[in-house]
């Protein structure tokens, strides 16, 4: 390990995960309990199997790890701080800490994953990355890492999302990526994944599919969780420092595919902390989904009675996804993590609440986690006096125009 300064240091949650942890490495079939697997066309199977080998090899290679750590530190701005929210804590009568992924380069946790996958792309001798994106944050992060490593980059984004996240489209183009607007299906994140998979089948020899969350076929859910586990590992050490050696009572993160939550949970799964994942009310795959297969994984999905996938509905493009990563489906089924949801209205309230009380404008995705805290503070789910860590997965700059429009529409309407 290269990080020798003790600041959230060498204690990487991802590796703790391999020793009898509740977030262990999945078996050779890529299953977390019953969930996961590899449901991909034969054309892609060899690539998935090879990727697993490449990642295992890289992850156990100290040179790879130290290069990754160095990049996250000197390029990505890690470790990100944990901020104590004084005014909001007072108002909610809890002790609220934020893990500040909004302060990482490109404005969200997404960079942790893409820097790792870009390094892996180079290691595999591939010259191009493709990615899907919803809010645009993973697309921006992918375009950024591609620029940094001199890789070609194509980002697939649903047409609905290219419209509501126009600025991020331009950002990706500035970074040298090609953005392809996806006009199939519901024209949101799920369709962007379909299109990226289709492209991957055609170009797999030269191209790595840099999936943006803990979803898809094995090894992606595991690999992305490991790459994001830096969030949880840092946060655990930072919390212990702040909380006189103890862990928070409750750890909360928003869940789209579930990568910021998985990375966070990896750091706390073996502590007594309660783990809460918060989905969008219109994309609540744990609450309203049933088991099924989509995008290469067996997980919980919103679908109708014959198995057609339903469209998610959310104010936040990044949570507009009808499924979630298989490890979350597993953690829900064994009861180690709890999953709840927040409505668009609650999210808008939380978005403004954090802005006004703490001077931090959160991403709409991250505001889901805050909305859960605001709704539950003082109830049995979150008694007064609790210590709560929320992963603030991203900053809200990208959402300001959209929120302004919504609020203006409400005033006029």
């Amino acid at each position, binding site marked *: 390990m290269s990080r020798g300064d003790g600041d959230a240091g060498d204690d990487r949650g991802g590796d703790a995960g391999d020793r009898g942890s509740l977030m262990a490495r999945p078996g050779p*079939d890529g299953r977390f309990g019953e969930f996961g*697997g*590899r*449901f*991909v*066309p*034969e*054309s*892609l*199977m*060899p*690539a998935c199997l090879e990727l697993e080998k490449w990642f295992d090899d890289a992850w156990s290679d100290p040179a790879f790890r130290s290069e990754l750590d160095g990049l996250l530190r000197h390029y990505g701005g890690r470790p990100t701080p944990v901020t104590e929210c004084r005014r909001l804590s007072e108002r909610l009568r809890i002790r609220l800490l934020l893990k500040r992924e909004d302060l990482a380069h490109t404005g969200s946790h997404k960079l942790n994953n893409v820097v790792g996958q870009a390094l892996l792309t180079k290691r595999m001798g591939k010259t191009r990355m493709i990615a899907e994106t919803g809010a645009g944050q993973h697309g921006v992060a992918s375009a950024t890492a591609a620029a940094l490593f001199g890789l070609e980059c194509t980002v697939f984004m649903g047409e609905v999302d290219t419209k509501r996240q126009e600025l991020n489209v331009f950002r990706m183009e500035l970074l040298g990526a090609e953005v392809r607007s996806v006009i*199939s*299906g519901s024209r949101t994140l*799920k*369709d962007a994944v*379909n299109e990226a*998979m*289709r492209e991957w*089948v*055609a*170009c*797999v*020899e030269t191209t790595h599919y840099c999936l943006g969350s803990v979803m898809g076929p094995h090894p992606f859910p595991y690999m992305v969780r490991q790459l994001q586990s830096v969030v949880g590992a840092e946060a655990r050490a930072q919390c212990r420092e702040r909380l006189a050696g103890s862990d928070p009572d409750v750890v909360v993160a928003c869940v789209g595919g579930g990568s910021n939550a998985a990375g966070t949970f990896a750091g706390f799964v073996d502590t007594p902390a309660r783990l809460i994942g918060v989905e969008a009310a219109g994309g609540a795959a744990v609450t309203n989904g*049933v*088991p*099924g*297969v*989509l*995008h*290469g994984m067996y997980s919980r*999905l919103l*679908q109708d*009675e*014959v*198995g*057609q*996938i339903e469209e998610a509905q959310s104010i936040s493009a990044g949570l507009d996804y009808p499924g979630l990563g298989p490890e979350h489906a597993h953690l829900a089924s064994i009861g180690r993590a709890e999953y709840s949801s927040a409505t668009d209205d609650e999210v808008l309230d939380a978005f403004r609440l954090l802005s006004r009380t703490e001077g931090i404008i959160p991403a709409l995705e991250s505001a889901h986690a805050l909305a859960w805290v605001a709704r539950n503070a003082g109830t049995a789910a979150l008694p007064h006096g609790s210590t709560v860590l929320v992963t603030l997965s991203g900053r809200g700059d990208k959402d300001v125009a959209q929120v302004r429009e919504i609020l203006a529409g409400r005033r006029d309407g």
Partner: protein
Amino acid sequence: MADLEKELRARRERGRKLLIPYLMGGMSDDWGKALEAVIAAGADAVEVGVPFSDPMMDGPVVQEAGLRALERGTTPDEVLDGVARAETPVPVAVMTYYNLIFRAGHKRIARKMASAGVGAAILPDLPIEEIGPWAAEADAAGVATVLLVAPSSPPERVARICDRARGFVYAVARMGVTGERADLGSDAAAVVGRIRDCTDMPVCVGVGVSTPEQAAEVCAVADGVVVGSALVRRLLEGGGPEAAAAFVGSLRRAIDEV
């Protein structure tokens, strides 16, 4: 219900190249008529698509056909009922995605296929690693699970796939999704060769084969050919059963000359 492998082997023994057109179940009111028309025009078996919301292996033409079918409210059971109602003197295989099978229940849908006269299923997102629970029920119901071999499949996988395949082995002509292409690409012959090294089951090539000339080219090395998007496009354009039959007839003539 015709046994797909037996039927295809018998035709191959008579020196006939195998023609397997694909069309999307439920894509129009008269899709059952189109199914009958392509059989009359010389199909040796037919693939019927069951529309799925997220067809990962399909290009724009089959996507559009699936969307139309879903917009018409088509369900998997309705497609199977449609096959049962149609006059199908040759074997019918369904092609769809695994979630619809999983959701319906392996046993229920396998039996429903069998009773509708569907002799085989092609599930492109169900690789051999994951096939177990479905294949057990399919075998029990007498439904053949056709498996795909891709240009990227290494020899040891090809052997395992051929070992588990039923009906015929589907050789994927190129890396990519379904859709018409100007040229055949250079992979098909090698894929067929790798399959031949492992099995004497019938081998049919599909994905991207678009014209009578390409079908003939493929049949010079393979036992048969699957043609999807080129046929589906003609149906999407409103050509109806007549245009479908005319196109399949032209494919038939081309491969009969091989």
